[in-house]
């Protein structure tokens, strides 16, 4: 109980700071909006390729972009931690009796709020551009769930990395060198059936793929409930493992202090 109370108050601080700089939220949305609008236009006719199995590219692309922007937001989570480390705020928290887990959990809860808001804005924009889904509200719910469950492990790993490396450059590097390849080896932009064989094999082990397949499958009503559940379950398991790593990173931070 204390854990949730403490996480709640720590998250409150992060949300207030975020609300004070709404331009920051807008800034993080610019890139996915560009993807959605430009790629949506550019590759409109890609659905005509045999084997694409989708009749509208904007239908196809919107859930992919929602997942991709959740992924990148989660990657940046560690930047805030580095800020707190540099300014002595982290040490102040660590000297207080607050639970270490609450410090991580509050960042992940804050990330979930960001993910939900971003996802809904992008989903709305997709609808304006003409995206329509048979999956209905349940489909949207699964998409949001998949986005959050993808952002949790990558958010936790970003926190873990910033606690161990403590340099902004390495977070930036990781976002570019890990998250971009993960995005392009997943069916965010291109149907899995049209990927080269090796890439399809890689995609099986790619969490971004799990999230896209679950969210898009639910919206387009093309995936079975079992297939969706399996992917959501995999993401949940990954979340738990990454949370454990982040807690370990805290211990290593304290030992090096």
């Amino acid at each position, binding site marked *: 109980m204390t854990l949730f109370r403490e996480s709640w*108050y720590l998250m409150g*601080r992060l949300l207030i700071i975020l609300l004070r700089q709404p331009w920051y939220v807008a800034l993080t949305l610019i890139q996915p909006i560009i993807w959605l609008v430009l790629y949506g236009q550019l590759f409109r006719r890609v659905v005509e390729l045999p084997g694409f199995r989708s009749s509208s590219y904007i239908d196809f692309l919107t859930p992919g972009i929602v997942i991709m922007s959740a992924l990148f937001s989660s990657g940046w989570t560690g930047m805030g931690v580095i800020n707190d480390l540099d*300014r*002595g705020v982290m040490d*102040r928290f660590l*000297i207080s*009796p*607050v639970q270490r887990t609450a410090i991580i959990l509050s960042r992940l809860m804050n990330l979930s709020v960001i993910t939900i808001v971003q996802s809904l804005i992008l989903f709305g924009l997709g609808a304006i551009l003409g995206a329509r889904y048979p999956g209905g509200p349940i489909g949207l719910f699964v998409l949001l769930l998949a986005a959050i469950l993808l952002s949790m492990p990558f958010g936790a790993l970003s926190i873990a990395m910033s606690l161990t490396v403590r340099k902004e450059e390495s977070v930036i590097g990781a976002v570019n060198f890990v998250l971009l390849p993960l995005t392009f080896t997943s069916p965010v932009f291109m149907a899995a059936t049209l990927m080269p064989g090796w890439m399809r094999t890689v995609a099986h082990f790619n969490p971004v793929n799990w999230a896209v397949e679950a969210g898009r499958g639910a919206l387009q009503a093309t995936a079975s409930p079992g297939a969706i559940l399996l992917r959501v379950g995999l993401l949940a398991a990954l979340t738990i493992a990454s949370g454990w790593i982040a807690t370990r990173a805290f211990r290593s931070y304290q030992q090096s*202090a």
Partner: protein
Amino acid sequence: MAEAALALHNIVKTYKTVRALDGLSLSVERGTIFALLGPNGAGKSTTIKILTTLARPDSGEVRVAGLDALKEPQRVRRVIGCVAQRSGVDVDSTGLENLTLQGRLHGMGGAELKSRVSSLLERFGLAAAAARIARTYSGGMQRKLDIAMGLIHRPEILFLDEPTTGLDPEARSDLWDEIARLSTKGLTILLTTHYLEEADRLARQVAIVDRGRVVTEGTPESLKAELRGDSVQIDLASAATLAAIDRCFEAVPGVHDLQVTGSTLHARTDHGATAVPPMLLALEAAGIRTSSVRIARPSLDDVYLRYTGRTIQEAEREGRQ
């Protein structure tokens, strides 16, 4: 006698190849202001980190408020407050938000927290700025907010790590008044500083730290009293060895504790005003030219020099290299 508020025994702490603390021992009575005095890099901040459970020593015993800090860090955290050297203020939040969150992290809430926050804001002259983002605060205001945060949960022990570093002289003396006022309420304060004046002015007990050890401790008065007589400093215009100077003072009575740092000769004399003329004559006779002379009552600077063989300023320069 009640157990000491803080007790460190034989603490060793190594960072990679650097030995930050080398068998440091310390005992601080309850309800007093205790100053750790030493140059940057002497091990003061590491000592604070260990006492506040932020770091673990390689070996040694740590007792805080009667608790074993290595076995029960969580209980220690409830009874200590800390003002870190680089501040802990979240500059993107307001003063009010910073204080309220700090109270909540200590399990406070409701009307009690509200009244505690507003009384602290009032007490440190921050009430008018409470709703402003801390980024807009002056250095002195941020420090006061830091101290208010350190006190919110009414700790038994307050740590102040270099509290006035980086403040202008006016803000510094203002903060000294605040700190002096805190000590009248039974709070134990451990303060680190490299300003001798600060330790002299605020602390009831002073420990001089050099290269990870306590070299001497006592009240500022007793430390200064150990140094007999006045301090004489003579700036030399020509180079001279300590041995040569020593020889030429053989005929001058009451001159002792000779040391040379840079081109300055430090000496202690029973009575400065009468000893200086014969000292200068003796140097002149030996062909050692002098440019200026200062006579002063002993200060903590002299104590530091005596125990470490260098002035604090020199030690700071060394530390930077």
